[in-house]
């Protein structure tokens, strides 16, 4: 049996290290579905909540069909936020095709110009009780997210 030199063992050790690194860094199966599930669920909950309020006649009740600017935005925002879990922060915007309005009903330059973290989910729901359909944009984020 021939005696192996120092470099042989160093090369063997390096080979094992390289092999270990390769095996341990194989691409992992994508888990983007699970990583984004919370956000998707929040978006779905926001959308279906707005849909339920519309089906129950609440959105129509506080919307002025002749002049959207005269709608009761305070009541709209309370009714939209009340069904959401207490652990969810919500921002609301309204868009009628021309104007974008904040939660309080004041006109703002553009919709979506709010601080949004990467876990913010956006639910958009359009209801067409007017000549111009109204889109409610609901920005949702979990407090403990």
């Amino acid at each position, binding site marked *: *049996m021939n*005696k*192996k030199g120092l470099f042989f*063992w160093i090369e*063997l*050790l390096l080979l*094992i290290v390289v*092999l*270990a690194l390769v*095996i*341990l860094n194989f691409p*992992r*199966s994508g*888990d983007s*579905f*699970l990583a984004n*599930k919370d956000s998707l*669920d929040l978006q*779905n*909950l926001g959308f*279906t*909540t707005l*849909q*339920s*309020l519309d*089906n*129950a006649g*609440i959105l129509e*009740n506080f919307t002025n069909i002749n002049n959207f600017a005269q709608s009761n935005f*305070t*009541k709209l925002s*309370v*009714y939209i936020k*009340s*069904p959401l879990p*207490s652990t969810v922060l919500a921002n609301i915007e309204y868009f009628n095709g021309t104007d974008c309005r904040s939660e309080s009903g004041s006109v703002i330059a553009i919709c979506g110009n709010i601080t949004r973290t990467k876990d913010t989910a956006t639910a958009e729901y359009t209801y067409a009780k007017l000549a111009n359909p109204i889109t409610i944009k609901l920005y949702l984020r979990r407090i403990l997210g």
Partner: protein
Amino acid sequence: MKGQTWVEFIVATSIFLLSIGFIFITASGNLKEEIQKSQQQASCLKAYELENFLRQPGAPADWTFPSGFSIFGLSGNNTPLVIQNDKWQGMKSFGFANISQNSTPSQSWHVSYDVYAFEFDPAISDSSCTTENAITLCRNSGSYLNITANSTSQSQTKLKLFLPFSSATLIGLTNESDDVANATSANGTSVILQLNTNSTDEDSVSLHLLATPNLIFIEQFNVESGQYLPFYLGNISLQDSFGPFAPPNAMICDTKVSGLLNLTTENLLVNFNLEGW
């Protein structure tokens, strides 16, 4: 020189075996994690599939118990997520086995709902209210909401109601010194109740609504009791579920959607919790 070779051999073999062991343990740990993620993803897809049954009326669209259906669905015709209460009750009457045979859900699912808001129309008065061994909200005479906790064992009921843009006064009917009943105002009235009941006890509070809200929200409901105490509006259950419960250690995935429970005369706003595993 021969001894030195054996030492080298033992050292090299040890390093080799330790390295292989390390790689195997780490890789198998990752593999277990991957398997769990795959199982959870499959459970999530199952939970999301359940939403279809809340969005479709089924076939025929007006199926009833016991005539049955060829495609399972719980909503009204062209009204996704507006669940017909008679279909929900029909589904429960069929029993789990028949649903499985006649439709597509696999066996490992559970659907439940919690009512989070209800209408308070002066025209609506609950003619019959189930109050025995239950927590009951009973609308009365167009401007009163009677809240009753009845149990045969030591129980504590915590309930928080929110009446948007409405004012209300609390009237103690048979509440006791250990009960808590508060009403605070902010964009409406919040009512916080804590009713402590014991054996053969009934505590009742009445809420006089001075202005009628469009909806009354149930913001919190919790019962600590040795017995099962259902939660009713009149005689309609505000919490219900269907399907088997998940076994221990099941890889459960759940999702929530909001919808309506249609009772013919009115709609209740509900959150559905869909579980798959």
